[in-house]
Structure formats: C-alpha cells, structure tokens
C-alpha cells in the first residue's frame, strides 16, 4: 500500500466520533467573524454598525490577491466592528453580528438535489470560487483560487484530493466523505476543469475503509477520478507528503510549490465548499467541526456556522468535563491550545479537542541522548535536534543553511523524542526569526 517515503510516525488514532453522523448545530446568539481567517492580507469590512445582513451576505471584501472575502453565516444586525481574541491568542479585528431569525440571501440554492452539469468555463469556475471566499479547509486556510492560478511556467498535471485526515481524533473529513460522496466527486470534476487537467486522485488512509469503498464505487461514474488507499502514517495529510505518497514526486525546498511538480492539492472539505460555491451559489460560511476528547460525554461532528463560539460546540457535545487540562483548536498534533473557549469557529477550524489533565501535561525535558529518533521521524528529511539546538543558541545563519524553512511543523520529532525535548518550540522560533531575516534581505534587493 502506498505511503510517503521519508519519516513519519503513528500516534494512537482515537477517532472517537467516527461513527457519529453530522448534526446541525443550533444558531449562536451572536456570531463573530475575525477578518484574518486565511493566509494573506486580512479582509476589509464592508458593513458597519447597525447594518442588517442575511445569511450569505458579504461582510468583508478580499484585501488583496492572496486573500478571501468573508460572508455572514447568520441573519441579523451588525452590533459592532471591533476586535476579538482569535485562536492565535491575540486581539484581531472582527465583525460582530447579533442573530435574528434565519433569513438567507435569495440566490443560494438550499435544496439537497445534486447538480452535476455546468456550462461554466474554467476561468468562470475560478472566479466563482474566489468570490465565494473558499480557502483550504484542512487548516492552513490558503485561498483556493490562488492555487488554481499557476505561476507562469508551471502547469498542473493532476489534482490530488486530501481525504487523509491523519490527525488523531478528527473525523470531520471522514464523515463528509461518507455523507456527501456525490457532491465531493462533482466538486472534484469542477476542480479538474478549473485546473485544466483530466486526472484526479483522492488519497484516503485505510483506517477509513468505508469511505474508500464508497468513493471508489461512486467514482466509477466519473472518468479520470481514482481513489488511492494509503497506509496509515502521520503526517500524510501534509501537502508534500501526500504528493509523494500518491504520485511519487518530491517537491523541492521552498520557494518551490506543489505546482512545480504538476500537482494541485485540495482538501475534501474544500472540494465540498467548491461544489456548493459553484453549483449552489453558496459562499463559504459553514463547515463541519469535530468536537472530541476522551472525557467528553458525547464526541460529535457538527455542521457549524462560522462565528459560533467554541463554547457552544462544547456544550452541545455534553459540556466541558471537569478534568479538562487543555482545549485545543484542531487536532492533537498540529492544533493550538486556546486561551479561552469564546474563540469563534473560523474557516480553518477542523476540530475542538478537550484533552484531560493527564494527556495535556508536558513531560519534563531531559538531555538529548543522540538517539536520532527525531531524524528518522522527520517527514522532510531534516535534523530536528540540530535545528532546535541551533535555534536555542540563536545561530540563525547556520540554521537557515540547515533548511529550517522546509520544516512543516508537524511535530513528529517532539512526539517521538524519548527525552521529551520541546524541539518544535525552538524550531518555530527559528523559523519565524529566519523568515524575518529572509524577508528583510529580499526587501533590500
């Protein structure tokens, strides 16, 4: 069975909510929309205090090419344009909307019927995706239309759909594949048309056999789409790892992009959003969020409107357990501990994980014993112990030469370290510093 060739680890899967069908979460009383929900320039608000909005009304315009507009997920009145503490832990500009009723914009097709045919040209599809504010929903939130506009000289050869969901605990993509297979496949054909290719692969790890068989069976009706079962290994959902696993090509070090090896990678959540945007005229304002945790009463998957506070999801899943040690936005490997639970659900929020105190506690760091487990675990072929030590000693030039910018921050090194060394903390510090140095150098040129 296929998988990526370098490194990787296998954390306990803990897919507690895999058997739970997607439930529609109640509307929040107030929805909060941070204006930087994506990579790139923050969106610019186009509403002001007192404005009345409907579900699907544009509330913020894209702030540049690498940016995305934001749509209201609720109907009601804009109560203020202020700041909110988002998942980063800092105050960011945000639009607050007080919810009144549930009135949708008229252009949105709310029926469940499957629309397969479209006469739109590739450019029109990309324009619709751009206008609907679709971004990568696997967590990185990279605007989707940018990926579909290759830089000069590069040409896409295939589309790779990421149905891997290699993060432990999370099941949002798994449920989506089980419950919306036709919509996803139509979405894939749309992406193939937009990227002007005739081949698409859907990579799924084989801990989801039901999704593999269902999609493989349905895909027979769609020419050019192939389902590729993959061996379970973290971080297979990483863009570069998935390309290596599926088409056996390695993306060179930054600034090279997946498009340089002819691949366009999109998450299944994104594909579904593309389907809804193009076929149903529905901008991106809701997504599936997994709420899970070992001590949680009722781990679930919710179809959630953006802007809903995480506390509401936790309540809906049985309330915050008493022994909660940390609340994580995202999965346990790459997610981020949150400082409070009023953080709103954004385009990239794939899950809310409640870790109990025992799971959440960090073990005390011991000296490095030079076992090189981190080196064999690193999926990018780096030497994490060296990157961490060099960053610790502020050796920025050397750490840049050691390719620190190739690190994808998957945390495999720290997961595998028998001395529990906080390598990723130091590597992140090194990456931010070196990134700043590189930007300053480029600005000088």
């Amino acid at each position, binding site marked *: 069975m296929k998988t990526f060739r370098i490194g990787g680890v296998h954390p306990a899967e803990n897919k507690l909510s895999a058997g739970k069908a997607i439930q529609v979460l109640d509307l929040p009383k107030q929805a909060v929309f941070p204006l930087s929900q994506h990579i790139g320039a923050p969106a610019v608000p186009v509403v002001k205090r007192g404005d009345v909005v409907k579900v699907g009304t544009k509330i913020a315009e894209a702030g540049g090419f690498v940016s995305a507009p934001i749509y209201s997920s609720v109907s009601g009145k804009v109560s203020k344009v202020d700041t909110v*503490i988002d998942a*980063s832990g800092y*105050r960011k500009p945000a639009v607050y909307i007080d919810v009144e009723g549930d009135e949708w914009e008229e252009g949105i097709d709310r029926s469940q019927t499957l629309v397969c045919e479209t006469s739109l040209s590739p450019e029109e599809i990309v324009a619709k995706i751009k206008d609907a504010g679709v971004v990568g929903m696997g967590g990185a939130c990279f605007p989707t239309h940018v990926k579909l506009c290759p830089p000069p000289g590069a040409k896409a050869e295939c589309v790779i759909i990421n149905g891997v969901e290699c993060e432990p605990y999370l099941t949002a993509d798994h449920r989506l594949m089980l419950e919306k297979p036709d919509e996803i496949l139509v979405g894939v054909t749309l992406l193939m048309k937009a990227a002007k290719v005739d081949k698409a692969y859907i990579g799924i790890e084989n801990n989801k056999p039901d999704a593999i068989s269902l999609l493989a069976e349905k895909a027979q009706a769609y020419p050019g789409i192939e389902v590729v079962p993959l061996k379970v290994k973290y971080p297979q959902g990483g863009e570069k790892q998935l390309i290596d696993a599926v088409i056996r090509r390695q993306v060179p070090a930054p600034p090279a992009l997946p498009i340089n090896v002819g691949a366009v990678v999109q998450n299944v959540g994104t594909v579904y959003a593309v389907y809804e945007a193009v076929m149903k005229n529905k901008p991106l304002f809701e997504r599936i969020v997994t709420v899970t945790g070992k001590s949680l009463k009722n781990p679930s998957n919710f179809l959630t409107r953006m802007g809903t506070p995480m506390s509401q999801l936790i309540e809906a899943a049985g309330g915050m357990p008493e022994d909660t040690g940390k609340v994580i936005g995202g999965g346990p490997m790459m997610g981020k501990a949150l*400082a409070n639970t009023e953080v709103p659900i954004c385009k990239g929020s794939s899950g809310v994980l409640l870790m109990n105190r025992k799971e959440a506690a960090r073990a005390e760091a011991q000296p490095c014993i030079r076992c090189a487990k981190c080196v064999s675990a690193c999926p990018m072929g780096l030497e994490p112990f060296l990157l961490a030590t060099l960053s610790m000693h502020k050796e920025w030039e050397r750490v840049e030469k050691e390719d620190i910018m190739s690190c994808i921050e998957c945390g495999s090194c720290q997961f595998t370290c028998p001395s529990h060394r906080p390598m990723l903390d130091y590597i*992140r*510090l090194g990456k931010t510093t070196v990134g700043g140095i590189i930007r300053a150098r480029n600005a000088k040129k």
Partner: protein
Amino acid sequence: MDLILVAVISLGAIGLVSAVVLFVASKKFAVYEDPRIGKVAEVLPQANCGGCGYPGCSGFAEACVKAGSLEGKLCPVGGQPVMERVAAILGLDAVASEPKVAVVRCNGSCEHRPRMTRYDGVKLCAIANATYGGETGCTFGCLGCGDCVSACQFGAIRMNPETGLPEVDEDICTACGACVKACPRHIIELRPKGKKNRRVYVSCVNKDKGAVTRKACEVGCIGCGKCVKVCEFDAITLENNLAYIDPNKCRLCRKCEQECPQGAIIAVNFPPRKPKTEAAPTEQLATRPASGEEKQNPNE
C-alpha cells in the same frame, strides 16, 4: 658526536632561514594600524556588549578614530568620563550626553493582573510571545519568562518573584540596550536618568481600548487622556489608547501621576510627598521601583 653536530647545525640553519623569512614578511606585509586605536581601546571598559552599536570595544575604538568626531558616539557602559578620556586621546571635543537607564514599562504584577491560563512551554519570552497572548488577559504586558534577565551581561536585571516582573538596578545598568532588543513585547525603554535620577513615565504599553485594558489589568493605561490635559509642558502624547511621556519635555512636576485614575504613571526617586497628598493611592507606587530611595548620580 657527529650526529649531535649535524643536528645542531641543520636546526640552526633552518632557524636562521625562517628568521630571515619572517623578518622580510613582517616588513613587507606589515599592516599600518593607527596607534590611537589601541590607546582608545585601552580606556574602554572592554565589556564588548555592543551597546554602542559597534561590534565590541575595538570596533568602537576604530570607529571613533576614523570618524574624526565624537558626535553621536557614546560608550553606554563607561558613560561621560570614558568618552572624555577618549576625546583627550584623539584631541577632539567630548560631546555631552545624557546618561540613560533601562525602564520596564509594565506594572502588571500578579495582584494587579490575574492569570487566566498557564503556559507550560519553553520558558522563553520569545517563544511564549509567538505562541499566544500570555497567561493574563493583557496581550501587551510582561510575559515574565526573563529573556531580559538572561540578555543582561551586567546582572542589572532580576526577576522579582513576588510581582513576576523584572526590576532594573539603576546603579549597575549601563543602558547598553541588550534587554530592549531581547524583549519581544518592546516593554523596556532606555530613558534619560533624569535630574537626581528622578523620572516620570507611563508604566504600560497596552494599546487596547480602555474597557478591555481595565478588565485585564488594574494598573494599565486606559487612554483616558487626563494626563495629557493636566500636563503644562505638552510632554504627554496619546496614541492608540496609550499615553507616552516625552522625557525631554517632562519637567518632573508629577501632576500627571496624581491625575492618572489607574496609577499607570510612575514617578521614581522623588522624596515623599507632603502629608496632605500622602493619602493618595498613587503614593505607594512612587516608592515601588528597584532602588527605592533617592540616589546621587555619580556622573552629575
């Protein structure tokens, strides 16, 4: 016997040839260095802290000799006396400079700024700052991991375990600026030591709106602007909900300190106020800073 003789002669010959080669090389490839550079370097304190902006003391000495003027050059460790000696060696005029000191602009101690979360990552401010907003509600204030303490070569900063904030010993501080660079939140500022070491400054860098700041910290600047109104010398500016006192304009009248409803303005090294104003709550803050009592500046 022969063997010893051969060894002595051959080694002697090698030595002689090498000596000639070295002599010729030292004359031919000699690099002229201004002898004044060495002399200047000798009077510098050799702390190699880089506070002057040059790579170490010898780099600073070279820059002083080559520049031909001491305008804008200051050894923060040695201060004015050292610069006068440098000026004497170079035959230049010493440029008068004001001694500075590092000032920590956060007063959010444990009692004033309640903790809401616990950070269990690596104990470095740089990492904590990149991770999230900090353990308290204030995303601008001191993180308390002590990057400034480890950056200080002179042992002038220490962490007060009771307040969780760094304190600067102004007698030891040389104003080299290492802590200013080390602080990821830009809390530490180099301010002129002031007359009789007296200084008035806003001990807060929070740019949030007043209501948000007030919720996070009891002693944060809420940007109410009262101090701006009360200042007779236009020394205080209000920008992004944060007041700043310009040390060059401040005349140390301390009206702003009394006016501040949050007690965010701090006056250090002043004698206690006269009894009638002593009841003011700001009084206890006036004696908070490290050295506490009035100290005579040796440079004055």
